[in-house]
């Protein structure tokens, strides 16, 4: 197992276009194989200690000893499998999707680099090593969002993602400094061992630390109020959206909370904030997704909403449930994104063939695609049912796991009951908007136009193959963590126990009556079905006008379509004042006045004056020189005499 971690490091940046796909995909599949080997090794090994590999010493500074070290434990093993497994499938998909793109080699280089940093993130055995991966995936995200950099909007979207992540990174760094101050270490093991003695439960320090940690998670995982970058990030290639902005990178925040579960468990206030923000985000993003027309935007807001569920789970102390939802979400959301990618691929080709200028991602220009791409349609329906929470698909169990915990905790504190209500409402909306997306895309009459219709076709096998594998996972993934009423339940929970053991004592045990649990399961199913049925009954995909002919939405619908004007609000509240401040105060006054005026030109003027003063001594008269010579000699003599 020792060479396993080194294996990740050997990722290289392919450049030769011919070999790119073989290398890019091969590396991923190989790492997936290694990951499986690691996990089987881990399940055979003793359960207590995580496996740590020290590579080299990075920064020995005073008392602080920072090593580049990787650790494999139960939590990183789960993440490892998700990242390499889903990553491999998405790489295979990309071979078909990006085939004709000019930046093919560049694309795979970025994608491999991303996977490398993601593995550093989940394998790092201390906060700084995690931070390297954290920043690295942010960089790759930026590079891949702005992948088609010739379009200004894409480049702007990349910048937006980068800047918003920066806010979160600031929080993470502050949290690291505070952790070091309190515990004297940054290694996960040492910090979590020291935590019970270094902090008091609910104390100000640990609350502050976890709040700053959570700020980092909010930025990375696109929660309120920093979620607006994620929908814009859809400017990148669709497989990127699937890999980075659905399955892996955005879940890093959830991973961080689960990893620091001891700290969060000791700060009940922070945990409640995490859960509350998660629940609010889940509902908020779900409402926006109701009125989006861009197929990828719907999925983007859906991702934000599902991330909200994950945070709700980890914020409620149900770390296993949060991670479980993370995993199942990776399966079905990657499937949805790749499916939408294959739809966009087909639309794009059709538009390309007829030189149409229509938007290839607008659902109003699709419709009836089921007849042209039956495989994609069927597989995406599976994912839709999974995310909506129809039993026995994976999303049903994972989402219900989170909601059941909220319900159980609701006995002690009514605030958690409110979260359960909010979460259930979001689940209803989820079922509705996902069904809406499917209906408008695949059902009803075809709206692509007569010419374009001839060019619509199913994607090649390299694209539908990964979809099929993901569909199997989306169906069966739920078996990993069944509710307690089923035999063989809670497998993932037991698996993660060594990681979450440190926090278990701070949370009360969750106990639900068998009857209540059945009722919750039934209720969740009813909610999901209600959403789907409502969508089928209310929406008439056959009567939908094309994007070009559609009437402007009015009133409430328009507010939703424009995403509650959050972007505009940020623009008015933060961007504009900042620009004003920079332009008027910083540029005109500080830069022009102080820096240019006083410092730059001022120092030049001072030198000039000193030079002028110096010229006054050069009179050209020998007598003056001798006078100064004598004065100097006298001063020297004086100095020498006072010395002795």
């Amino acid at each position, binding site marked *: 197992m020792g060479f396993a971690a080194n294996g990740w490091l050997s990722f290289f940046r392919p450049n030769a276009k011919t070999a790119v796909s073989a290398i890019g995909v091969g590396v991923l599949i190989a790492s997936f194989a290694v990951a499986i080997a690691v996990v089987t090794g881990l399940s055979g090994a003793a359960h207590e200690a995580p496996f740590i590999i020290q590579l080299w010493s990075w920064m020995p500074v005073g008392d602080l000893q920072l090593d580049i070290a990787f650790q494999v434990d139960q939590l990183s093993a789960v993440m490892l499998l998700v990242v390499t497994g889903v990553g491999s499938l998405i790489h295979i998909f990309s071979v078909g999707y990006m085939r004709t793109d000019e930046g093919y080699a560049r694309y795979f280089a970025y994608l491999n680099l991303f996977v490398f940093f993601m593995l550093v993130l989940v394998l790092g055995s201390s906060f700084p090593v995690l931070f390297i991966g954290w920043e690295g995936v942010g960089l790759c995200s930026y590079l891949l969002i702005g992948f088609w950099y010739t379009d200004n909007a894409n480049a702007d979207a990349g910048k937006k993602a980068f800047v918003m992540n920066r806010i979160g990174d600031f929080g993470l760094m502050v949290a690291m400094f505070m952790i070091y101050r309190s515990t004297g270490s940054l290694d996960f093991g040492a910090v979590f061992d020291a935590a019970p003695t270094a902090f008091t439960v609910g104390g100000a320090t640990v609350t502050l630390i976890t709040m700053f940690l959570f700020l980092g998670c909010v930025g990375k995982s696109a929660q309120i109020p920093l979620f607006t970058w994620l929908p814009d990030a859809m400017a990148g290639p669709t497989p990127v959206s699937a890999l980075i902005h659905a399955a892996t990178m955005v879940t890093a925040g959830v991973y961080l909370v689960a990893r620091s579960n001891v700290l969060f468990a000791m700060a009940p206030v922070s945990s409640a904030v995490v859960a509350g923000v998660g629940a609010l985000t889940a509902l908020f993003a779900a409402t926006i997704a109701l009125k989006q027309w861009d197929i990828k935007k719907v999925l983007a807001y859906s991702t934000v909403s599902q991330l909200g569920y994950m945070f709700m789970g980890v914020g409620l102390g149900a770390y296993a449930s949060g991670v479980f939802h993370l995993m199942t979400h990776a399966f079905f959301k990657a499937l949805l994104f790749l499916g939408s990618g294959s739809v966009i691929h087909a639309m794009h080709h059709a538009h390309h063939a007829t030189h149409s200028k229509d938007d290839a991602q607008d659902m109003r220009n699709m419709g009836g695609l089921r007849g042209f791409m039956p495989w994609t349609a069927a597989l995406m329906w599976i994912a839709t049912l999974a995310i909506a929470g129809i039993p026995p698909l994976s999303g049903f169990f994972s989402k219900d796991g989170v909601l059941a915990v909220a319900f159980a905790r609701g006995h002690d504190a009514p605030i958690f009951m409110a979260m359960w209500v909010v979460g259930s409402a979001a689940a209803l909306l989820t079922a509705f908007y996902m069904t809406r997306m499917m209906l408008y895309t695949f059902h009803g009459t075809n709206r692509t136009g007569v010419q374009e219709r001839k060019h619509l076709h199913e994607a090649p096998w390299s694209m539908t193959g990964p979809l099929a594998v993901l569909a199997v996972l989306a169906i069966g993934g739920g078996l990993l963590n069944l509710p307690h009423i089923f035999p063989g339940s809670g497998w993932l929970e037991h698996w993660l126990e060594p990681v979450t053991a440190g926090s278990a004592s701070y949370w009360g045990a969750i106990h639900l009556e068998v009857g209540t649990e059945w009722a919750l399961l039934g209720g969740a199913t009813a909610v999901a079905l209600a959403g789907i049925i409502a969508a089928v009954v209310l929406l008439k995909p056959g009567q939908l006008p094309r994007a070009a002919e559609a009437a402007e939405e009015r009133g409430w619908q328009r507010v939703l379509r424009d995403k509650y004007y959050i972007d505009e609000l940020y623009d008015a509240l933060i961007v504009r004042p900042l620009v004003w401040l920079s332009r008027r105060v910083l540029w005109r006054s500080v830069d022009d006045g102080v820096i240019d005026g006083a410092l730059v030109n001022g120092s030049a003027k001072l030198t000039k004056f000193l030079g002028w003063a110096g010229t006054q001594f050069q009179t050209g008269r020998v*007598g003056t020189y*001798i*006078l100064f010579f*004598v004065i100097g000699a006298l001063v020297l003599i004086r100095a020498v005499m006072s010395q002795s």
Partner: protein
Amino acid sequence: MLAPALGVSAILFSIGVAGVLLRRNVIIIFMCVELMLNAVNLTFIALAQQLGPEGQVVVFFVMAVAAAEVAVWVLRQMAG
């Protein structure tokens, strides 16, 4: 005898400096330079009484250099 000798030497040196600084005539300036040299010579002689004969040797060197200086100056005048 040391203190009066050093005092005279200091006065002579100061007169020499003042002359170099204040007078404009080249010959006078030259004479003032010689005056300073001889003030230093006087110091050497006075101190040689106590510290041994090396100071007197230096005085001969100074006188030789001063004489050479005069010779250079005279030659320059003759050529010009």
